[in-house]
């Protein structure tokens, strides 16, 4: 049975009392800026710091700890060599403004990564600047506006999304100042062509789509979708969060998408870091090239790499410098190792693993799976039957999985599935691990609901009162 390490780990400022430095003011500092209050950082010995964080790390679950099937998050293994190489000071110790002749290695990596991402997605050009998927989406919206305004079509103020879209999609749309229109999916969990056709107009700027969608279903009508969208004069945006399903099989560029973002921290194996740093490069078709952020990276005839700032129609910048370079470097290394066949194999096995699990769970009859049968890299189950029969909620199942030493899937998303469990195994898991998860999920359905309600019990703490954290926010140790 799984047991997590448990520590009643004190705060840094409880391990060692904060010493008031009472430091003398520095006479050269302007009077109005002389310190009135000293900084209050804990003063610790390095041993104490090492133990503190060691203890904390043991109360944290990562992909190296075990199975992590968070839907739409693509928690695949993070090869160690990427960490090693990216920490070489020849990379990590380079300054973004140093003379380009002294960082030709960096520029080569950025240049080649752009070309490789173009090939993988079927797009013409890439920008590596966005720091995460959501920022990629935001950039996509800026490019959309620039494109339409350049054509004099300033009245295109609406962006359409299916009701299965990721939460960042609508948030990015409104942040960029567009009006949001959500359309209902069909009974098969796909884009409703009739509704889409009725919704597009001369006011439509863009239609955003994830394919395969968040139910894990491939939108087979994509050719019809792109025709409807383009006929209306709008652009088609690809949310690449689910790219891990289709590498080497099909490409957003070939499907007719105009703008694509990728999440390198998903499909291209760079670590999530407990929330970041990530990277969300954006690819476009040639008609949008001139609006891409600056600088662009070029290569001269004598194989020198250069920055090109000469782009009068460019939207400018969305992030300092050239994006999260250390993350870009890791993705570059990953693609080098995988190669063409490796990437294809990754997608094939990711989809195989997902369908293998889905079949076994659905066959057990314990959970239902609304919508179509064939799935790509992820699938969405419903605990609605368990809720009706035994008052077991998706939340209860998720928390009980923790007691089995397994990370739960994404829950309560997408919103169109009641009591949703969204499972994405990725290609990183062995058959044994998949079987173990399936068996655990099935056995949980038969457990006494009381046990589930009290779960988890094998984690460092029991079920957390999240409502209280919002009602009575305590956000740092000074607020206690």
């Amino acid at each position, binding site marked *: 049975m799984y047991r997590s390490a448990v520590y009643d780990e004190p705060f840094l400022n409880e391990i060692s009392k904060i010493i008031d430095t009472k*430091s003398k003011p520095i006479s050269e500092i*302007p009077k109005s800026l002389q310190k009135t209050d000293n900084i*209050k950082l804990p003063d610790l010995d390095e041993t104490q710091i090492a133990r503190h964080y060691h203890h904390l790390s043991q109360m944290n679950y990562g992909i190296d700890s075990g199975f992590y099937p968070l839907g739409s998050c693509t928690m695949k293994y993070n090869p160690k060599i990427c960490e090693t190489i990216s920490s070489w000071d020849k990379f990590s110790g380079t300054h973004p403004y140093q003379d380009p002749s002294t960082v030709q290695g960096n520029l080569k990596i950025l240049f080649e990564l752009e070309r*490789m991402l173009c090939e993988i997605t079927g797009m013409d050009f890439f920008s590596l600047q966005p720091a995460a998927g959501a920022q990629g989406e935001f950039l996509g919206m800026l490019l959309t506006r620039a494109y339409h305004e350049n054509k004099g079509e300033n009245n295109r103020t609406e962006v359409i999304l299916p009701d299965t879209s990721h939460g960042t999609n609508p948030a990015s749309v409104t942040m960029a100042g567009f009006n949001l229109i959500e359309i209902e999916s069909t009974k098969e969990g796909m884009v409703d062509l009739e509704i889409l056709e009725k919704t597009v107009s001369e006011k439509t700027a863009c239609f955003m789509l994830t394919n395969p969608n968040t139910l894990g279903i491939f939108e087979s009508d994509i050719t019809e979708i792109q025709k409807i969208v383009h006929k209306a004069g709008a652009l088609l945006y690809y949310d690449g969060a689910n790219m891990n399903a289709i590498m080497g099989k099909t490409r957003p560029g070939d499907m007719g998408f105009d703008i694509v973002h990728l999440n390198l921290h998903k499909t291209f194996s760079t670590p999530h870091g407990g929330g970041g740093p990530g990277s969300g490069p954006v690819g476009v078709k040639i008609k949008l090239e001139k609006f891409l952020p600056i600088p662009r990276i070029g290569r001269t005839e004598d194989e020198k790499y250069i920055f090109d700032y000469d782009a009068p129609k460019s939207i400018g910048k969305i*992030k300092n410098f050239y994006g999260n370079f250390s993350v870009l470097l890791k993705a570059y290394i990953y693609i080098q190792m995988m190669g063409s066949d490796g990437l294809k194999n990754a997608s094939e096995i990711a989809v195989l693993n997902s369908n293998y699990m889905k079949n076994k769970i659905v066959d057990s009859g314990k959970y239902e799976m609304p919508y179509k049968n064939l799935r790509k890299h992820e699938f969405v189950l419903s605990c609605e039957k368990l809720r009706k029969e035994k008052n077991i909620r998706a939340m209860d199942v998720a928390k009980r999985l*923790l007691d089995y030493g397994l990370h739960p899937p994404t829950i309560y998303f997408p919103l169109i599935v009641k009591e949703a469990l969204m499972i994405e195994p990725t290609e990183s898991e062995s058959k044994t691990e998949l079987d173990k998860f399936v068996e655990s999920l099935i056995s949980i359905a038969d457990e006494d609901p009381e046990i589930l309600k009290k779960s988890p019990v094998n984690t460092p*703490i029991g079920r957390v009162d999240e409502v209280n954290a919002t009602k009575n926010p305590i956000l740092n140790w000074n607020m206690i």
Partner: protein
Amino acid sequence: MKFIPNSSEKNKMLKEMKIKNIDYLFADIPSNIKIKKLDLPKGLSQQETEKKLRGIANNNKSYNDILSFIGGGIKPHYIPSIVKSIISRSEFYTAYTPYQSEASQGFLQAMFEYQSMIADLTGMDIANASLYDGGTALSEAALMCVRIKRKKSFIIPENISWEKKSILSNYLKGPDIKIVEVPYDKKTGKVDVKELEDIIDGNVAGVYIENPNFFGVFEDNVNKISNIAKENGSLFVVGVDPISLGVIKKPGDYNADIVIGEGRALGNPVDYGGSSLGLFSCKQEFLRQMPGRVIGMTNDNNGKRAFCMALQTREQHIRRGRATSNICTNEGLCALASACYLSWYGSQGFEKLSKINFENGQKLSKELNLIKGFKRKFESIHFNEFVIQTSTDVRELNKKLLKNNIQGGLILDKHYPDLKNCMLFGITELHCEEDIKKISSVLKEVMS
């Protein structure tokens, strides 16, 4: 390379699933959009990869290979070994966003501690668990001012980095917020307070300044600027270089409402400009308008101390189109590095570090100011960056320095036409007396 265990189990699994071949699983992709193969090179072994990357890396020069004095708001600092050791623990770096609190207590507590230290360092009540970088943190602060004040313009100094300016204008385009620039005093390099008084009116949601500013200069008229902002019903936003906070007042002590900054300097390598770390802290009254993830303390079902993501109802995964920001993935691991870094230095160590940066800045500017044809551009106290005006073509000068294996200052005239032949120099605690002597002697030679 072996990362995909079921590559060898494929046929067995397909058989169990009663499927003939893997293509069946992709039968829902129409044939007109299917591809045969990606045109990419064959995969390399781990050993081959390392060799190839070694070759590429050798075309780079790091700050260990070249003596660098380039500024521009980003410079390498010393990173204690403990930082790398801790952020390399894979329980931390291979974890996702802590949606499942019970399996993420370690990271959550570390972020709670990070928020505590950033709030204290900036003199604010609360801090979030990071944004992408300094530029987007400024943009989010401006958007927050607009949400709170419901006014449609935002004042920034003319002399913030051009990159930040561009980022800000992109983030403010959608909601149609006007950016108004207040000029800097050409003598001092500081915000021209009189101009600010003339420009500001009742329609301004926020006033932004940087301390030290992009020219390295300390803005010492902060009390006046703060009052001007408040009198006109605007919020006061301050951008910081966190390393400077060991020698100067916390922005909270001169009445800032929101503090932002590039936090990368706290324990993270320069990494060619990214990963980065957006610092964001503010007064408690603005809590529910804050962007980004924030970690809170609560209890578990046994009354034990516990941590989780708090106020999630502001965020995109709950509120979708009405969220305070679209941010999801942030810079968690960089924030962890910062927390570890700050606790390693402690109050005294951090103040000392800050002081060395200040003193090295003074030493270098004094030394360069003595060189014929070199003059400090602004007659103000500066931190660890400063502008030098030269009597020569700075592009040629940098080329000559490069021949001596020195990276000179950042050339400014492209974005600040007033600053012809000016360079922004930067120095940190990594430089020693000898380094200062070296650049000074090479410059003397080059200028003579």
